[in-house]
């Protein structure tokens, strides 16, 4: 037992790898939240009038809403008036090519292991790098535009493709959807926009890398992905933030629209600062992600590896509207120390012959609480809907918790829905077997956890899968109770 304890101590004293921050001149909005701030942001971003109206409408709706409290998480409330809603590095003009980007900014991303230099990267990933409130660089735009693919920051999309933005913005997550989505709609600063034209298979992974650098800011980015008929895209999202004592808010919205026969694969490795070992600081990650399979035979697949954030509140969902459409959700959520995660998905079957699959693997260690909350809803007209859900929990230590809240609401007699869940810990016999074969306890835990999460990790694109495996091993090594 003493050995285990020493390993545990070592683990809990492990520093967050990406906890550093950089000082540079920033262009910031005054602290606080009111209509003037929203106008300020909108003017700053040179937005058209309709978008400002849209923001203000969202803000007015938000004022009438109250913060949701149903999630299985407890945290000190954030004073939204004490936040700064816009902070951008003082490099006003967005560089047309990477040579013009401030080397200091490139250095930040180099340090995170994200090279913005096209030559240096592994082939096949285009990155949109978002720092605090703005997108600082987008790579491979030239290559992509030859195929008609639009991949740029949200602000650019508003200027260059207003018709597309106007058509799809808020079409999947309406501004009134929930408290944080409404807040995001009012104050969102930047994010990525992506449009894949008809019949195009995107040749490389598209990726956004979010970084919170400034203190006292919230990050409110907005991602919109539109996949036109018979197109395909795989999209990655990564995120980190400096270690700070106060909690920071991240309230993003991601919308995906898949037309008929289109396929969108969205992967996230979420590694926001989780707070220190006493639960101090960390990011509040309150995110609304939703995709709509609008056309027949379309498919949306969410894969997420959640290792960071002090509090996570996130339910990537699929609305299966088109007949024969498919929704998938693969998740590994790891919580340690005082982290709390309430995550899951919603699969809403509207079209006929729709299918969905949910695989959720929760791992709790330390004093953390990990909840799966999911809903499978089969509407009256959704004949032959099919769902399979599996949500397993792995507990490490006797001071953590694992919770499952699956809602299954069926209104059609031809639906086939299955749900299963198990909760267990890493067997002593498994550890013993590994020890016997000369594998140290720490490595054995990493091995077993990786095996446990394999079904999900296999869904990740290769580069991410490697990162995710490392993250899992790092977050959990030695946490044998």
């Amino acid at each position, binding site marked *: 037992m003493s050995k285990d304890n020493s390993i545990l101590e070592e683990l809990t004293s492990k520093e967050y790898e990406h906890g550093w921050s950089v000082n540079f001149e920033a262009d910031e909005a005054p602290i606080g939240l009111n209509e003037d701030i929203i106008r300020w942001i909108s003017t700053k971003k040179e937005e058209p009038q309709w978008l400002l109206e849209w923001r203000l409408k969202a803000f007015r709706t938000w004022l009438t809403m109250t913060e949701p409290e149903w999630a299985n998480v407890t945290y000190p409330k954030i004073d939204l008036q004490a936040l700064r809603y816009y902070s951008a590095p003082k490099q006003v003009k967005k560089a047309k090519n990477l040579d013009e980007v401030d080397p200091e900014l490139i250095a930040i991303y180099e340090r995170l292991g994200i090279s913005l230099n096209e030559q240096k990267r592994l082939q096949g990933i285009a990155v949109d790098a978002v720092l605090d409130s703005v997108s600082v660089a987008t790579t491979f735009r030239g290559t992509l535009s030859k195929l008609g693919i639009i991949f740029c920051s949200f602000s650019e999309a508003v200027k260059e493709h207003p018709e597309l933005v106007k058509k799809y913005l808020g079409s999947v997550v309406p501004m009134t959807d929930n408290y944080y989505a409404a807040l995001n709609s009012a104050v969102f600063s930047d994010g990525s926009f992506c449009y894949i034209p008809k019949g195009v298979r995107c040749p490389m992974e598209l990726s956004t890398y979010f970084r919170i650098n400034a203190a006292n800011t919230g990050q409110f980015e907005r991602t919109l992905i539109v996949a036109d008929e018979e197109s395909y895209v795989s999209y990655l999202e990564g995120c980190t933030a400096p270690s700070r004592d106060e909690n920071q808010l991240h309230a993003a919205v991601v919308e995906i629209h898949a037309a008929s026969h289109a396929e969108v694969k969205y992967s996230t490795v979420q590694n926001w600062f989780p707070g220190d070992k006493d639960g101090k600081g960390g990011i509040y990650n309150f995110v609304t992600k939703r995709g709509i399979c609008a056309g027949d035979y379309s498919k949306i697949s969410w894969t997420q590896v959640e290792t960071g954030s002090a509090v996570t509140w996130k339910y990537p969902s699929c609305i299966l509207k088109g007949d024969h459409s498919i929704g998938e959700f693969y998740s590994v959520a790891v919580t340690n120390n005082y982290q709390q995660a309430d995550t899951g998905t919603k699969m809403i079957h509207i079209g006929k012959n729709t299918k969905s699959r949910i695989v959720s693997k929760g791992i709790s260690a330390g004093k953390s609480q990990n909840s799966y909350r999911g809903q499978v809803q089969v509407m009256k007209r959704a004949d032959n809907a099919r769902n399979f859900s599996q949500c397993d929990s792995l507990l490490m230590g006797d001071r953590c918790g694992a919770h499952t809240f699956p809602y299954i609401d069926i209104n059609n007699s031809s639906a086939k829905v299955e749900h299963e869940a198990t*909760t267990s810990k890493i067997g002593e016999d498994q550890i013993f077997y590994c020890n016997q074969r000369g594998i140290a306890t720490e490595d054995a835990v990493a091995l077993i956890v990786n095996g446990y999460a394999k079904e999900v990790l296999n869904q990740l694109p290769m580069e991410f899968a490697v990162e995710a495996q490392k993250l899992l091993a790092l977050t959990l090594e030695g946490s044998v109770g």
Partner: protein
Amino acid sequence: MSTLTKQDTFSSLIEAAPNNFASARATGKEAYVFQGLPAVKAEEYKFTNISKKLEQNLTDFSTAKPLPLTDAQVKAAVHEGFEGSVLVFSNGQFIPGLSSKIDEVEVSLISEKADLPIGSIANPKKDVFAALNQASFQDGLFISVPKKTQVDKAILLLSFDEANEGQVIQPRVWIEVGDFAEVTFIDQTVSVGESTYFVNEVVEVKGGINSQIHYYRLQNEGKNAIEVSTIETDIQKDGRFSSVNISLSGDMVRNNLNLNLKGSNSEGNMYGIYLLNGKSHVDNHTNVDHTIPHAESNELYKGILADQSRGVFNGKIFVRQDAQKTNAFQQNNNILLSEDATVNTKPQLEIWADDVKCSHGCTVGQLDEEALFYLQTRGIDKLQAKGLLLYAFAGEVLEKIETESFREYCDSLIQERLGSKF
């Protein structure tokens, strides 16, 4: 806490309560006022809008008076082959005059037990209807099985309900089973007529060390009956509590079954069938609380839903921090037979201990086409084949009933329903 509409809907009922058990009633009233009737979308009553139902259907918020019953009526209502003793309730009131005497078992009115800790097991703070009952019940039944007593024959709690339109029936039962004792209860309701009324029942069961308690319940109320029942028990060391709940009708029925495992090596079993048609709405909420190590719970609920019926299931399993080495299993299976039937199920696990084996599963589906086809190739027509397969589906729960005559009775009711209706 709640913003409900008619906070004082039941205040006249509470005002009219007898003046015994003053402190328990005061606690109940306080808990009732604090919680209020469930608001629309309140998580615990999300799919069962009981407040609206009561508001629309109850007209007279007073307690229904007992019916004039005869021995012959009682005899006719007891199912065939039953050999045990019968305790009769009329509109929620225990009627000693029509009830059997049971050897070695103490039976009396609750009002004769002035120092009974009413509400110490079924905590009124957990549910507003338990609170309402505690504040305003008229009288009830007290049963005590002394220690080391084995009651061979089942005890039938037979309730006759017929209230005038929109009255309230509030049965209250306190069961004590001593150490090493064993007993079987059958809780059955006979609706006389089809009037609308509201039954709000609370059963508290205090089990002793190594006591074995079987509690079978058959709900076959009139189709206009509205019912909320709360059964709660504390299971001590080596004790076992097994319940089988069969729901066949009712306008809106909500069953709260709470098992608190309080001693090591204790075991709680919960089985149920809801076989519904018409516009019946049955909501089963079960709650198992593992607070100590080395306990086990098993749960299996099955639903067959036809016409416009609705089945709601919410099974909660709590495994507290100290409850290591817990085994907890939960399963809920549903078959929808019609386009308009609905099922809302939520099997919920909340676990704070790491060395446990817990699993839950839930399915919603149809009969296996291949099995149907197989039976048809053997010359059984489709309708009959369907009935047969559904009967087999329900059979897994039925076989948990250990009292043979009662099992056969339920069996025949279910067969009749499946044969005639489906």
